């Protein structure tokens, strides 16, 4: 297969590009997404939420080439045999590219690692992890203009389908490329610059540019409903290419009306009566979870 822009052998198909043209295609796609949704501008202080996986490392690399003020933040949930491996990759990457990295942990911030919480309580790991990670990312991104996450097009298509299948319009309304844009004190604007990049494209960029990651699955991932949706979507995509992109395009088309009907722009955000951080409820999910994990 030849590159569609030159005579060299293609290294990626769908679209067919050689290494040089694939890199241009991928970086242009990220640039277009940043511009289309007004994600970040010159001089912005950008904090990238990183795990050490391919998505976050590729995002960190692409953004640090474009913006001078990029730093990295990672969360250590305390998952034995998993997070040590990804953090090792992350430390080495940040050292190589001269990027400042901060790591904050569940144990230091909430008093217990995820492993300990799961051994003590009957609770879904992804629920605890999701709530606490969101809290820490927002807490430690104060003073930055935006916080960028490595969510790619596959992640978004999966989230849209999961919320459709669960009939959760309020959660569906949150799947946009930018969130936290209301002028609420203490809520950092969150952006997803890889919103239109497929997981396969991200992986190809990672390999072609020597961004070394190590495949390791979170030991709790098998419990996630997302896994089933992901496999089904990949099967459909294989026989009907472009399916994931059409799902995301459909969502973008209706997201304005959906947010309106779900009251997401109605300015209902107040402050948690316990911690004082932004919350739509009197007590935020993080404080409720902390109370639950501390209870006997």
């Amino acid at each position, binding site marked *: 297969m030849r590159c569609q822009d030159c005579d060299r052998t293609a*290294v990626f198909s769908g679209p067919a590009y050689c290494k040089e043209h694939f890199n241009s295609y991928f970086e242009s796609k990220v640039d277009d997404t940043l511009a289309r949704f007004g994600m970040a501008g010159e001089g912005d202080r950008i904090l990238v939420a990183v795990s050490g*996986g391919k998505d976050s490392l590729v995002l960190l690399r692409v953004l640090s080439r474009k913006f001078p003020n990029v730093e990295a933040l990672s969360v250590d949930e305390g998952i034995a045999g998993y997070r040590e491996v990804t953090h090792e990759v992350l430390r080495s990457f940040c050292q190589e590219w001269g990027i400042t990295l901060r790591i904050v942990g569940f144990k230091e911030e909430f008093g217990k690692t995820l492993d300990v919480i799961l051994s003590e309580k009957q609770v879904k790991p992804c629920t605890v992890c999701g709530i606490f990670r969101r809290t820490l990312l927002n807490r430690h991104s104060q003073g930055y203009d935006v916080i960028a996450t490595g969510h790619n097009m596959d992640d978004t298509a999966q989230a849209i389908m999961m919320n459709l299948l669960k009939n959760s319009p309020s959660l569906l309304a949150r799947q946009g490329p930018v969130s936290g844009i209301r002028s609420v004190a203490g809520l950092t604007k969150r952006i997803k610059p890889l919103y239109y990049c497929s997981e396969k494209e991200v992986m190809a960029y990672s*390999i072609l540019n020597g961004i070394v990651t190590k495949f390791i699955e979170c030991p709790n991932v098998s419990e996630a409903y997302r896994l089933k949706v992901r496999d089904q979507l990949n099967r459909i995509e294989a026989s009907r290419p472009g399916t994931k992109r059409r799902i995301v395009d459909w969502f973008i088309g209706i997201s304005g009306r959906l947010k309106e009907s779900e009251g997401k722009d109605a300015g209902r955000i107040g402050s948690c009566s316990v911690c004082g951080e932004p919350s739509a409820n009197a007590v935020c999910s993080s404080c409720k979870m902390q109370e639950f994990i501390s209870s006997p």
Partner: protein
Amino acid sequence: LFLDLFFADVQLLNEQFLLLWMDIFIERGDRKIRQEYNGTVDGLLRLLGINHEEVLVVKGDTLLTEDSALEDGDSIRILSVVSGG
């Protein structure tokens, strides 16, 4: 004549028992297999029951497209694309 026959035998053995196999590393599950195969990347993935949406195939340092030709004696890695949670 004896040496000629000896080297011809060695070459035959090499072709039949060494080069007739492809070394394949499958990242997900950390598996190494040997497979007799001549055909495209896409055909090999079908044979192994792997969805091409979920992997990238690498030979040495080169990414291969689905129509790339593979043959016995090749050594390839099938890398997982899906996130690890």
